[in-house]
């Protein structure tokens, strides 16, 4: 590995996931480095989203989903019964494919997380959290005069940045992004990518994407998934210039998927 000085933040070991009888992930072993962007690519239905949903245990929400194996964050196992998912999800934020602002004001959208975790003691602190989060998500200048308008009144790209700001509001360490730009136009996408580039200075980011170009642009490390298995993981540079596996080669050159 080229970036051998980087510290491992998340480590998945022998991870198997089942939806009912169907197995979605097979023996996944993947290390995710601190404060860099890891991109997960692969054809639809290959298990990329299932994998990142294991990192904040969002699969718990799905009744028929069963997770086996281990995921460690900073060396601590998260797949144990006594792990508090509330604290886990405070640490691991998530941004979804389709912008999903709550039907509340822009301000309340951001304040939602801090209220739940009791992060602010008074109105000033909350105002401060809202402002910093929106600034970090590069949305502050666009919305500072209309914080009381509903979040749904924003454009698609703004909504997605609002969702990123919402995830940042509880000071996470890891941000999971599940195809964050697939519902956005190229200009909004460019803004989000710029933002991701900026955010990786302070956060560990895992991004699922269908766009090879996006993976090249934003990530330092790339994992290629196929049919629930990891085919190849390496630095983004290596994967896209000189992949070791024939399948990876075929996929990135557009021969399948």
């Amino acid at each position, binding site marked *: 590995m080229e970036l051998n000085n980087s510290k491992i933040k998340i480590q998945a070991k022998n991870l198997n996931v089942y939806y009912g009888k169907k197995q979605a992930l097979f023996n996944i072993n993947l290390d995710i480095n601190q404060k860099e962007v890891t991109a997960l690519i692969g054809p639809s239905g290959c298990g990329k989203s299932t994998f990142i949903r294991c990192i*904040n245990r*969002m699969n718990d*929400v799905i*009744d028929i989903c069963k997770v086996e194996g281990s995921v460690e964050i900073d060396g601590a196992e998260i797949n144990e019964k006594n792990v508090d*998912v*509330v*604290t*886990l*999800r*405070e640490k691991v*934020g*998530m941004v*979804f494919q*389709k912008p*999903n*602002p*709550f*039907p*509340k004001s822009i301000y309340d959208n951001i304040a*939602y*997380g801090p209220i*739940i*975790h009791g992060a602010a003691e008074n109105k000033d602190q909350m105002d401060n959290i809202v402002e910093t989060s929106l600034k970090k998500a590069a949305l502050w200048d666009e919305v500072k005069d209309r914080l009381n308008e509903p979040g*749904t009144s924003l454009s698609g790209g703004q909504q997605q940045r609002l*969702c990123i700001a*919402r*995830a940042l*509001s*509880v000071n996470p360490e890891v941000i999971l992004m599940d195809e964050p730009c697939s519902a956005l136009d190229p200009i909004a996408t460019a803004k989000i990518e710029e933002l991701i580039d900026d955010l990786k200075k302070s956060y560990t980011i895992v991004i699922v994407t269908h766009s090879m170009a996006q993976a090249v642009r934003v990530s330092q490390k790339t994992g290629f998934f196929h049919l629930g298995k990891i085919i190849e993981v390496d630095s983004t540079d290596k994967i896209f210039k000189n992949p070791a596996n024939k399948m990876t080669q075929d996929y990135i050159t557009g021969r399948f998927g």
Partner: protein
Amino acid sequence: MNSLIAGVILILCLSSYFFGRSEARKLVTQNIKLKALPAYYGYYLSLWCGLPALIIFGCWSLFEPTIIKVLILNNFPQIESKDLFYEQTLSFFNGNFSGEITNEIKAASIKYSSINIIAQNSKVVIIAAALIGSLTFAYRKIQNNNKARDDVEIILKVLLFTSSLVAILTTVGIIVSLLFESLKFFSTINIFEFIFGTSWSPQRAFVRDASAITPEELLELQDAFGSVPLFAGTAFIALIAMCVAVPIGLFSGIYLAEYASTKVRKYSKPIIEILAGIPTVVYGFFAALTVGPFFRTLGESMGLTVSSESALAAGLIMGVMIIPYISSLSDDVINSVPQSLREGSYAIGATKSETIKKVVIPAALPGIIGSILLAVSRAIGETMIVVMAAGLAANLTINPLESTTTITTQIVMILVGDQEFDSPKTQAAFALGLTLFIATLILNYIALRVVKKYREKYD
């Protein structure tokens, strides 16, 4: 006779369907390209055969009695009570008349029998002509390979339009009749006395002949129709009902939508909805015979005077009746909140109940309010339970243990039995009905607007 004609028309319709279809198939075998499936030619011929004849038949049957009546009565201008005379003639003609047979009745009866024969014959002739005419016309059209498909579409459209027209006209008719009878009522009783008066005692207006009311009596009657106690009673009972139905309905709706497993939901939702299918009269006697006396004994054991017909019993049972409306509607509304909102909330660390409280319910609130408003208008319009369980005394009270009465109960009380239609007492029922109608209409309108506004949000 009439059923025979109808039968013949229907049989002809059916056979012309098969005839038209086989004719069309014949054309196909002659290598003529049809513009529609053969069945459409069948429908086309059948509709053309049936509709004109049925329309003529219907109109004829509708207007025939009146026309005959007018024709006969024109011959006897000297008779005074014409309706009675005509009824006597008819029953004499049918051979079940048991009164004094006058010469006029005999003459009229002879006249009737001759006109009747003419009418029957001409009916048969005209309908037969219509059948033959329209069948020939349609058959020619088929031969010319016309666009049967389009014509069948048009006829069906007209048919559907007529059906909706009937529904609309009925509604308009009911509203107009309510309005006119109410106007008659308000011409004798001051409308402000009706709306703001606090004493309801319509039995004071019980006079055999309404035209015999003297102006002095009318003046005394002015304050007998104060509807405030009725509105207060209605609102009070509806309030008690909502106090029962809103929490239980809403919570069970939330449970079904968010917590229940698919299996539980599959069985429990229909079971709750059965509550809505129980006839209200069953709820009524349950309230009157079980719940009312139960509260009474319970109250007595605590040293309270509880009327055996109490607002509490009626409201409670009405609340139970309304639960499924709220639970089922709010379940649907909660289900239509996008899953992505829930995931967004979970992803930031919210628990299930926090997510429901802070994201799902606010998102679903307009729909929930809509369902509650619909339930309120159901509660206000409910009759059977309150008739049986709430009592008849128009008390202006806020004590739930006393008996009280509602608008619907009073309408029932006023109209039960033989009534003079021009007495202010009877007309009061229409005035009450009108106000009730307006109240529920407004509630329904608000409810639908709220629900609609909510729909637009996620589309």
